[in-house]
Structure formats: structure tokens, C-alpha cells
């Protein structure tokens, strides 16, 4: 198991490298690169621009630039934020926790309610009820979170004044966990609703299939109570493909979090990326993108390893 984990972790390294090359090219190649931000300033003399280019190594060939950037990244030097005049690493890392709270909360909402809804769909006896639940789940999957989030804010924050209208804590209050959780509630529910819809479908499809398998027929023939049949036999068997789906959906969860952060003014990496893209803060753009990607890849690694814990048939050789 340990060697397997180590091998998988090593296997993720080239992926991180490839992604970093892709992102580097994407950000550096087009017109309006980092130096142009300063060149656009009419008070900047050509000498000053040349000086800045030399200072950041922008006058060197692209592959050298990449190597020095990647080398610095590994050493923990992620460049300095143009707008905040401090290390990009600090700017990004202080936002990382907030994004994890939001995505974690949304995942929790999605898993708990998604599983419950999926089970409800499986056992709904009337076809009408089942079709209605299925339609509801498709709708939930199709609502753009930036829209549902906006509506939630308009109704519950502006009109009814039940929930905070955004941000992470009450202004002027001492930072405490309860206050943060209160602010997290609406964005996590909005972001999580997409996953409630999605996972209910997978749970439903999974249960439908599992209930046709021989081992369940055997268990049922032995006279096991339906609720135990579900809890001990059927659900664990569907949990394994669910983990796969979880892993595959992570990039989208991150994208959803980015949008939700903007709507609810949640100070996470997504909002940072949006702001720094609009403000052309290149080091922060690169740093937050890399963090997003590393998050996805690490989470994929964890889902891979979870197979072993969930599925006794998986052997690590």
C-alpha cells in the first residue's frame, strides 16, 4: 500500500510539470505580457521598461524564463504580487484555507443530501414521485450557481435580511468559528446544490444496478431486513464508483467555487484569481492557478488511494 501510494505520488509529478508548462505558456505568450503592464504606463521610459524586463528576466529566451520560474516555484519563491507588493505565495496561501472551507462545506452538503435524495429516488414507489425527483435533480444540475447565488442573496439577504450579504465574517467582530460558519452556510448550500443533484443521480443509478446483482439476491433470500440490506450491502457497493465520480468532478467543483466566491464575496482563491486576472497581477495569477491544479491532482491521488480502503478487491501490487 505504501509503495503504491509513493508510486502514484511520483506519477503525479510529471502531470504537475506538464500543467505548469501549459499555464506558463498561456500566461506569458500573448500580447500584453507582464512587461506590457508597465509599458502601458505613459510615464515609464523605455530605459525603465528595459530595466524591469532585465530584473524579471523577461528579456531572456522563453525556456530559460520557464526554468527559472519553475525552479523558484519549487524553492518556494513564487514572485511578488504586482498589486500588493508582497510575496505572491503569502497572498495565495492565506486564501487557500478559505477555498477549502467552501469546497469542503459544499462537498458535505452534496454528499449527505445527494445520497439521501438518491435513496429516496430508488425507493419512491409511485412513478410520478420518482420522475419528479429525477426532474428536480436535472434542474439542480443545470442551474448556474452564479445565478442561484445571486437570487439567494437578493431574497434572503437583501429582502428578508436573514443571512449575511457576503464576506467571511461580520465586520468589526472578533474572528470566530461560528460567525464564519454562519457566513459559509449560504455559499456552501448554493455550491453544494449542484452536487446534491449530481450525486443523487449516481447513487440512484448505482443502487438500481446493485439491486440486480446476485449477492444482493442471496442476502435478500436469507431474509435480511430491507434497511440492513441497503446499509450493509447495497450502499457500500455503490460507494466505490461514487468515489471515482468525486475525483472526476473535482476540477468542476473548483470552478464552481471560483464563481461562488465572486458572488458571495468569499475571499478564496477563485476570487483572487478573478481579481488578479482583471488587474494583470501575473505572479498571483500563476501562483493561484498552480495551487488550484495541485489541489485537484492531490485530491485525485487521495480518491485513488481510497479505493483500497473501500474495495477489498483492489490489491496494490
Amino acid at each position, binding site marked *: 500500500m505504501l509503495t503504491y501510494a509513493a508510486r502514484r505520488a511520483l506519477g503525479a509529478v510529471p502531470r504537475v510539470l506538464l500543467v505548469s508548462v*501549459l499555464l506558463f505558456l498561456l*500566461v506569458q505568450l500573448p500580447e500584453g505580457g507582464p512587461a506590457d503592464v508597465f509599458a502601458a504606463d505613459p510615464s515609464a521610459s523605455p530605459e525603465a521598461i528595459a530595466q524591469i524586463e532585465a530584473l524579471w528576466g523577461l528579456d531572456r529566451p522563453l525556456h530559460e524564463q520557464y526554468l527559472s520560474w519553475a525552479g523558484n516555484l519549487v524553492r518556494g519563491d513564487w514572485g511578488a504580487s504586482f498589486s500588493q507588493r508582497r510575496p505572491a505565495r503569502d497572498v495565495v496561501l492565506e486564501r487557500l484555507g478559505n477555498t477549502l472551507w467552501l469546497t469542503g462545506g459544499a462537498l458535505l452538503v452534496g454528499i449527505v443530501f445527494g445520497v439521501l435524495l438518491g435513496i429516496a429516488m430508488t425507493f419512491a414507489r409511485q412513478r410520478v414521485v420518482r420522475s419528479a425527483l429525477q426532474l428536480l435533480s436535472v434542474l439542480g444540475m443545470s*442551474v*448556474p450557481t452564479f*445565478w442561484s447565488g445571486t437570487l439567494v442573496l*437578493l431574497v434572503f439577504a437583501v429582502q428578508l435580511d436573514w443571512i449575511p450579504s457576503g464576506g467571511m465574517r461580520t465586520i468589526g467582530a472578533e474572528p470566530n468559528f461560528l460567525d464564519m460558519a454562519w457566513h459559509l452556510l449560504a455559499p456552501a448550500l448554493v455550491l453544494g446544490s449542484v452536487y446534491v443533484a449530481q450525486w443523487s443521480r449516481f447513487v440512484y443509478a448505482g443502487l438500481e444496478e446493485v439491486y*440486480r446483482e446476485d449477492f444482493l439476491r442471496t442476502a435478500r433470500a436469507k431474509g435480511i431486513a430491507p434497511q440492513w440490506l441497503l446499509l450493509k450491502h447495497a450502499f457500500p457497493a455503490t460507494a466505490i464508483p461514487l468515489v471515482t465520480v468525486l475525483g472526476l468532478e473535482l476540477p468542476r467543483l473548483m470552478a464552481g467555487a471560483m464563481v461562488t466566491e465572486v458572488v458571495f464575496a468569499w475571499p478564496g482563491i477563485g476570487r483572487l484569481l478573478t481579481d488578479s486576472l482583471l488587474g494583470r497581477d501575473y505572479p498571483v495569477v500563476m501562483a493561484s492557478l498552480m495551487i488550484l491544479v495541485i489541489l485537484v491532482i492531490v485530491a485525485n491521488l487521495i480518491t485513488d488511494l481510497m479505493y483500497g480502503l473501500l474495495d477489498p478487491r483492489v490489491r496494490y501490487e
Partner: protein
Amino acid sequence: MNKQVKTFLRDRAAVMAAVVLLSLVLISLFAPWLSPHDPNNTSLRNMMQAPSQLHPLGTDDLGRDVLSRMMFAGRVSLGLAFSVTALALILGSVIGGLAGLLGGRVDAVISAVVDTFLAVPPLALAMVASAFLSLNLTTLTIVLALVSWPGIARIARGQVLTLRERTYVEAARASGASTVRLLRRHLLPNAVAPLVVAGTLLVATVILVESALSFLGFGLAPPTASWGGMLNEAQPWFQEAPWLAVFPGLAITLAVAASNLVGDALRAAIAGGTLRRDTPT
């Protein structure tokens, strides 16, 4: 094939969804003739009017008719969604098909690239690309297609991997068919069904990604707007004029839900109705 059409037609929700999607497409297509007003006609006297008989969905902060703007925005949103999907289907099935067919080192390289793309949230990738490019309909289509093809490539590759072991493919190969001919005549036509399903679902995804992109302010330059772009423009006025927030989002949800429903039903129909089963007890 007939049996599959029947299975599809029996799914009432899907048929309705197909009708909704088709209507949205037709309304957008004929927007210049159907729209009650000029979508870009500003009028300071008619700023932010609530829905009325003259303006069924109200007017925006510049006095433009929301319904007319939405019809024209539909051309952008849906037009992009369909052209991006078509482009991604072509790119993805050719690249994925080649990977599956050639195997070995080619497959390893392509799969690595596909995995790399799949690790980056498409929205983030599209945001970065559109922030640094001068955006017009063509470049936006290309950007969105470039972030969408890897999923298709993965499916096409999987399909080709299973198909290429079939006897008829072996026979074609034995009789000296070229790689291109194998792909074109034997492999891709038989992989079409899952690709059609994936394409329909991709339409939904592209609408969502594009609208999120535009909502965040990385979309097309005004006055051209997609539904997401309309939401972006109206953001400061949501409190005073909630109809500006409601209707474009409704259009997005409707289009996405309809594509999802159609895609689901197509998948079920292709699976041959095996998915329908009595409630377990």
C-alpha cells in the same frame, strides 16, 4: 435504430426538453424578425422599467428592451455552445481516436496531454485565455473548444480501444486498410452513439462555462452579450431591478436543463432500454 427512437419518444420529459431546446434555437435564429424592439436601442426615458405590455421582460439600465436583448443573446449563447461542441467533437474524436488506434508511445503522449487538461478547471483555463486574448466570437469559440475537447478525446479513445479488437476491424486491417481508413470507415462510425450523447451533454456544459465566463467579466465586449454577459452588465442594478437578474438566468437554466435531459434520454435509448426496471424492494 427504430427501437431507440421509440425508447426516446417514450420519455416524455425528454421529448418536452427537445421541444424547448428547439424553440430556444428557433427564437434565437429568428431574433431579428421576432424581437419586439431593437436590442441595442438605448432610451434614457425608459430606464429600468418593470415588465409591462410594451416591454414584457422590462428594460435595463440603458432603457434597452430585455426580451429583445435576450433573443439576440441567445444567438451568442446557443451559437457558441453548438459551434464549440462541434469543434470539440471533431478535435476530440480525431485525437482520441488516433491515440486508441495507434497505441504505444502516441497513446502515452496524447493521454498525458488529455490528463493534463482534465486537471485544470475548464473555467479557469478559459478565464486565463480570454483575459489575455482580444476576444471576438471566433477566438471565444476556439478558446472554449480547446478547453472542451479532452473529455471527448477520452471517450473516443476508450471506444476505439474496445472496437479495435472486433473481428471486422481485424479483417479490414488484414486486407490492408490504412490507419485513416480504419478510423474513418470502421472505428469512428461505430463510436458515434456515445459521442453523440457526450456531445449533447457538452452543449449543456459549454453554455454553463461560457455564461460563467461572461458573468465574471471575461466575455465578449459590449454591446454584444450572451445571457451570462447580460447578468454581468446588470449586476449593479439587481436590487432596484430584479427582473434583470431573473430572466437571463432562467434562459440559461432552461437551455442547460433541456440539453441535459435530451442527453440523458439519448443515453438511455442507446443503452437499449435496459435501464428501466421495477423498484427494488
